[in-house]
Each structure stands twice: as C-alpha cells, then as structure tokens.
C-alpha cells in the first residue's frame, strides 16, 4: 500500500530533483516520479498534482524541452529533456542546496 505523501518538499527542491533526474536522459512524467521515489527509497514521494505543473513551468522557463517519443508501453509519450540552460540551473540549485543543507546540518547536529 502506497502511503500518501509523508513530507512536503521544501520549496524549490522539486525543481532541482526533476532537473537532476532529467540529467540522466530524456524521460516522461511517470518515470521521473518513479525514479525519484526509488532513489530516495520512497523517502520523498512526488505528488502528481505538483509534478506536472512543475514540468510545465520548467518548460516555459526553457530549462527543459518536450517532444513526443514512445513510452515503454509503445504509446506516444511526451518526453522531457534537459536543455543547456537547464543544466546550468541544475548546477546552481545543487550548489545552493549544498550550502543550505550544510547550514541546516551544522545547527541540527551541533552539540
């Protein structure tokens, strides 16, 4: 049984996770969600209600682009692909996440 989303993602983290997932290669929405869930051992669950708007937003900003491809089911699927601009954005978000999490960790794990 899949539980409902246990923890809300911190703002901005979802974008970074999507970009990172797409850095491995073009993919469609379901696979992106699945990949994130599996990679985090289902610690992070992606809400479909926020995944797709996020994908459209990223597309609009030019960080990802979409094209029609074929899914595993042999059906027409909309595939998202990271653009050059998206790659730069990913690097920026990764760096900022590192700063953020180091900072948070320093506080939480201080003696």
């Amino acid at each position: 049984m899949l539980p409902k989303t246990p923890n809300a993602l911190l703002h901005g983290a979802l974008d970074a996770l999507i970009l990172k997932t797409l850095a491995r290669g073009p993919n469609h929405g379901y696979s992106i969600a699945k990949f994130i869930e599996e990679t985090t051992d289902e610690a992070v669950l992606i809400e479909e209600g926020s995944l797709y708007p996020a994908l459209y937003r990223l597309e609009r900003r030019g960080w990802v682009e979409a094209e029609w491809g074929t899914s595993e089911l042999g059906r027409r699927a909309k595939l998202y692909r990271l653009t050059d601009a998206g790659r730069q954005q990913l690097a920026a978000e990764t760096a900022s996440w590192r700063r953020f999490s180091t900072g948070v960790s320093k506080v939480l794990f201080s003696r």
Partner: protein
Amino acid sequence: MKRSLRSWLWRIPIDQEIDEELELHVEMRTRELVARGMDPKTARELALSRFGDIRTLKRTMTDLGRKRDREMRVSRWLEELADDLKVAVRQLKASPSFTLIAILTLALGIGANSAIFALVDATLLRPLPYADPDRLVSLWEKGDTIERSYVSPLNMIDWSTRGHSFEKIAGFTPTVGGMVMAGADGNAETVSRQWVSAEIFDVLGVKPIAGRTFTAEDDTERTNVIVMSEGFWHTRFNGDPGIVGRELRLDGSLWTVVGILPGDFRLLGQTSIWAMRPITNLPPRARGAYILEVVGRLRPGISIRAAEADLAAVATALAHEYPQTNKGRTVAIQPMHDSLVGRDLRLTSMLFVGVVGFVLLICCANVANLLLARATVRKRELAVRSALGAGRRRIVRQLLTESLVLSLLGGAAGMISGGAILRIAPTLIPEGLLPATVTLTFDARVAAFCAVTALLVGLIFGVVPAWKATDFSAAEVLGSDSRTMTRTGGKLRGLLVIGEVATAVLLLFGAGLLLRTLLAVDSFDRGFRAQSVLSMLVDPLGSKYPTPESLQQFYDQIEAEVGTVPGVASVGWAESLPLDFFDTGGLSFEIVGDPPVEQSQRPTTEYQVVSPTYFSTLDLPILSGRPFDKRDARDGVQVCIVNEGFARSLHGRNPIGLRVALRSAGSPDEKPTVREIVGVARQVKGRPDEIKDFVQVYVPMAQDLADDMFLVVRPQSGAAEALTPSIRAAISRVDTEQLVSVRNVMTLEDIAWTATSRHRFRAVMVVAFAALALVLALVGVVGILAYSVQQHVRDFGVRRALGATTRDVLRLVVADAARVVATGAAIGLALSAASGRLIQTMLFGVSPLDLGTFALVTIVLAVTAAFAILGPAWHAARIDPAVALRNP
C-alpha cells in the same frame, strides 16, 4: 533542432496534449499497482486519486501551456527575424556595389520627399500657430467689380458691433512700414513697424511675455502705444525688462512701450514693433479708405457660411445708409489659414508633392529592378533552401527582410539628405512665397515621415521581386541550366523600366513647360532701356513738410544734391516702380466729350506720379507728344502722359490733346480730376506675368505729390548699387535733422528678379527633380541592356564566329533597350499631353500642349539615352567570340 520547432512540427491542441500525458501516467501507475497485487479497478482509482482535484490540475497546466506556447511563438518569431537580419546583412555585404546603389537611390527619393513633406506640412497641414486656429477667419470687402478688397475701418467696426457671429474682429495694415527712432546718441534709425487695431492680439489669442497688449481704452483715448517683438527687445534693448512703460521717440512723437510679444509670434511679414492705430471717432470719409486686412474670431459653433449671411445683412444695411461708399459692397470670409497660405503656394506645394512622388516611384522601380536582377542570380541559392525544406512563405519573408533592411538604410540616408536640403532650402525659396507664420524645420514629424516612407517603399519594391524570385520548382532550377529560367522576370523588368521612362518623360515635359514660362517672364520687353537703375523709397516722415510746396522743395533739393554725386547720370522720382505694382484696382477713367458710360462699365487705369526726369532716368521713350517739363507746374494745366496700353484702348484715336476724367474706382460719385494727355510713353510691365495690357497714366509730381516717393538713379556706367553710400550721404546733407526714412534700397533688376522668383523657384525645382528622374530611368535602361547582353552572350559568340560584324551584334544588343525607351517615351508623351493642363495656371507665355516642349523632351531623352546605351552596348558587341563561347 531549435526547441521552438517542437510545438510547430508536432502541433496538437493543448487539451489533448495534457489528457494524453496524464492518461499515460495513470495507466503506468495502475500497472505498477496491479503488479504489486492490487485489483485493477482499485489500482486505477488510487492512481487517479493521487492527482488530487484533477480539474484544477488540468486548468493550471492548460494555463501554463498556453503561456508557454505564446512565448515560444514570439521568441521563435524573434529568432527567425534575427536569423533573417543576419542573412540580410550578409547578403548586402556580399554585394557592396548593389547595396550602395540601392541605398543611394532610396536616399535621393526619400530625402527629396521628406524635404517637400516639410514644406507641405508647414504650409498646408499644420494649423496656424494661434490659439483655437479653427475659429480664425479673414474678412474682405467684395464689390460688383472687385473680387476682394481691403476693409475700411468704419465698416469693420460696424461688422463687429452689428454682427452676431464673431467674438472679436480686428485689423492690421497689409504692409510693414518704418518709423524713425531717435536714439540717445543722436543717431536716428529706421525701425520696421506694422499698424494694428487695438484688439488684434485678443483676436489671435496672443499673450505678451511682459507687460500687456492693447486695450479698448488705448483706442478710445487715442494714446500712442506700441508693443515690440522679443527679438527686437533683445537686440536693441538687451532684454532690459524696464523697457515696458518707457517712452520712445518715434517719427518725432513719444510712444509708450506697453508690452513685449513672444519671439515666434508673426502676423504678416517681419516687424520689430506693432503700433496701435486708433479706429474710434474716425471722420466719415474714412468709410472710403480701404486700408485694413481684417481677421475675426468666430463664436464657437458658428460656421463661415452663417457668419457670411450674418454680415451680408449688416452690409446691406450699410449700403442703404452710406450708398456713396457702400453700394454693391458685401463681405467675403475665408479661413485665415487659406488666406495666409494662398493659392499660389498651395498649387506650388501640390506640384512638388506630385513631382517628388513620381521621383520616389522611379526610385522604387529601380531598386525593384536591381532586386529582380539579383533574384535571377540567386535562384540556385533559393532553390537549395527550398529543397532543404524552407517553405515559400519563409523564403519570401527572408527576401522581404532584406528589402526592408535596404529601405531602412535608405530611409536613414534619406533623413540625412532631407535635412541637408532643408538646411539650404531657405536660400532657394523666394521671399514672400511662404507666409511669415511658417518656418521649415527638420523635426520629429519629418523623421516619422521618412521612417514610414522607408517601410512602405521597402514593401513596394520588395514584394513583387520576392514573390517572383520564389516562383519556381526547385527540381527544375537545380536540374537545368540557369540561363533559361528568367524569361518572365525579364518581361517584368522591361515593364518597370518602361514605366520609369514614361514617368521621367512626364516630369521632363512639366519641367520644360515651367522653364519656357521662366524664359518668357525673364525675357519680356521691360519697356525702359536703362541697364542698371538704383531705387530707394524716401519717406519724409512726420510733419516737417506740412505743405505740398515745402515737400516739393524737399524732393527737389534731394534731386539736385544727388545729381552732384560723382558717377550719377540721371535722377528722378516715382510713386511706384515697374514690375512692382500692387493690384490696387486703380482709377476709373472717361474721355471727356465721349458719351457717358455706366459706372460699372468704366475702364480702369493704374496711376503713377513721376518727376519730369523719370523718363530720361529710366531711358523710357516718349513715343509721341512731349515729356513733362517746367510748364507742368502745380497751378498749370493739369496734364498726364499715357502708356501704349491706354492709347490702344482708344481704338486708333490720337490720344494727344484728349482730356481724361479720373476717379478713384472705389468712389464712383466723387468729382473727377480732368487731365489733358500730352504724350504717349512706351509700354512698361506692371508685373512680369501680366496677361492683360497694363493700362497706365503718368502724372507730374508737381500736380499730385505723394507722401513718399521712390528715388531712381541711373549711373554713368557700371553697377548702380555701388552708388548707394554716396547717395545716402547726399540725402543726409539735405535732411540734416535725420527725420527721413530711406528704405527698400534695390535695383530695378533686383525687382525684376524678385518678381519672377516664383517662376524661377518652380522651374529650378522641377527641372532638378526631372533631371534626377531622367538619370534614374536611364540607370534602369542600362540595367535592361546589361541583362539583354548577359542573355545573348552565347548568341553573340556564335554570330561573330559565323561572320557577323560588330555592327550586326550592336543592333541586336541595343534593340531591347531602344524598344523600352521608345515605348516609355511614347507613353510618357501621351500622359504629358493628357495632363499638361493640370499646371496651366502656373504657365505663362506657353501652351500646355507646346510642340516645342514636346520636341525638346524627345531630343533630350533621345540624346541622353543614346549616350547611356551606346557605350556599354559597344563594349558588349566587341566581346571576343571565343571567350563568349567558353564562358556561358
């Protein structure tokens, strides 16, 4: 592939895109859950439930998707534009001579048009620089025999007080005169002055920058008040604010400066001061003095027609009350703008607009021609692009971008050339053609005109070549020899050049007619034989010479003193000068003893007061009878000399000894002066382009002295201007108190030159533009020639190899170009014949169907076209057959 291509190559409706995407997600999730052992129905429900409210989600996605697509369209468009611009610039750089010629051509066309636009904008389009200019009108008196006359001050007052259509009516004198201002250092100077009635500035809505303007009290109290222009205030009084309220000594009396008017205010002509002329309590005889130019401000909502009807009623009443002066007189009203701009300027502006418009069309045709020629060269390039998948619209857009870039560059260069034309224009435009309210400047409106013209022009010359250039099948072009592909393009180019030649011929014909007009007005018989005569207006202002005797003595003294100046051959006096007559309506005359004639049927004559020495000074022959002499004194027999036009009106009777009764034309019932004709003088022109015989009587100055007179001086030899300083010095020796105003110093040649300046201006402008048109059209013809050579090079080679002479080949080469020129010329001449009468009102001494001009145009075209064609043709005809065959 650009990311933007996705939505265009795979365009499906946004709703379908979202549905498909979400459905796939649900299905895959369901499969996953079923694989984990859930039953399919529950699995699907669970998968769906994870979307939350699916309708809200879809709405959000649709919204985002729409925005995304819109932005993509814009960015795609911009990207393509950037690409097109890059290609365009590369293409233009690749053929610099083509680019340069095209830009120069456009710069000439757009520059000329922008300068003429500035003229038309300033004169015809822009409202007058007064408050609420729509309500300002000019008012004139109109009579049975007089189309339009100035207004008597008493009539103006009655119009104003009895009529109901106007807020205010005021007047001013139509000419600018001078006043002598005594300076603190004892030096007198002449200041230009215009008389105005008190309320003129209220009518026009002018606010002073210091002090006030005139009031009704100034008028009723008849105070001596003036306002001055900002410019005069700065140059003469260094902008001293204390000048308001000060008194100045003008023409010997004291005048109070009450205000200063803004620098850009103009009424009519340039003047330094405006002096108030009181109009209340004038004597009744002022009703016959037609001296004012009158403007009125209509009440809001009143039409000119209504105002005219209103004042017509007033005029009818006045005609009953004052039949002597007002019988048959009524009122004519026209917008002030129309009366200031005038018919002549309107026609001239329209003429220029037409001419430069045609020049611009020729420019367009030329550039279109260049583009068509290039299109044949670029056919392969375009075919390759098309084969690679670019649609026809896309290629047309690319080519249009190129022509727009070209036209915008041309427009920018045109702004520069237009600005340059406007900078030198004021020196070319004859004085008096433009109303004083008009200034020519290169401003934002002219710049906007350039930009819009450039865009339109770019479209005009770009669309057809672009469409034509893409009218092919790629396979055909790529698979064949490119030489065979150009037949239709060639026909179109031929038509364009025929149009150019026809237009150029039309302009040449117009230029020819205007030139013949100029020659006609310049080479007329002046009547007098003196080569160089200096003239100046001598105005003994004020009350220094109260009686005619003292005034006559003063004039005599000056005549004697100037006569002693070394180099002076002869000195005389005249009330007015040849070629410079105002149309005053003149005097009506009857021959004493002839049967009486109805007042309205009486002939009229111009009236000129002269000294006995006038005829010898101008070397104007007395054809019969005698000149004036000492006998014709004040109390002697009243005499006159008539001109040939007058004598001719007598139908063969000998005028000598006849007596004429002269009355001013405006007052038919006044007691006439009767004068005996003692001589007939040679005909002199009153205006250079007068059509009717100028009828004139000369009267000795001793018998009817004028308040101011022109001094005329003939030098013993050489140019008369050189005598100016010594003559001025001689006048000051007589006028020791410096009360005399000497102004309008010019030679009679200057006067003739000024009088013909409008014709000269028109002729020079149109000739220049027609020459430009001719050159441009010939450039087009040479283009056709080059094209024809390129088409036939192989032919020539073969023919030469088979023994054809250079001459044979030459004939072949020239044939195309000659056919184009001949067709264009025939069409152009036919158009000229049909449209010549459009400019009839500007012609003088030449018919709009003048055969000489037709011949002249044909010869000019034939000769210039021959020069343009034969050089390159000769060159082409001598191509070595061997070379021609090797290099197709």
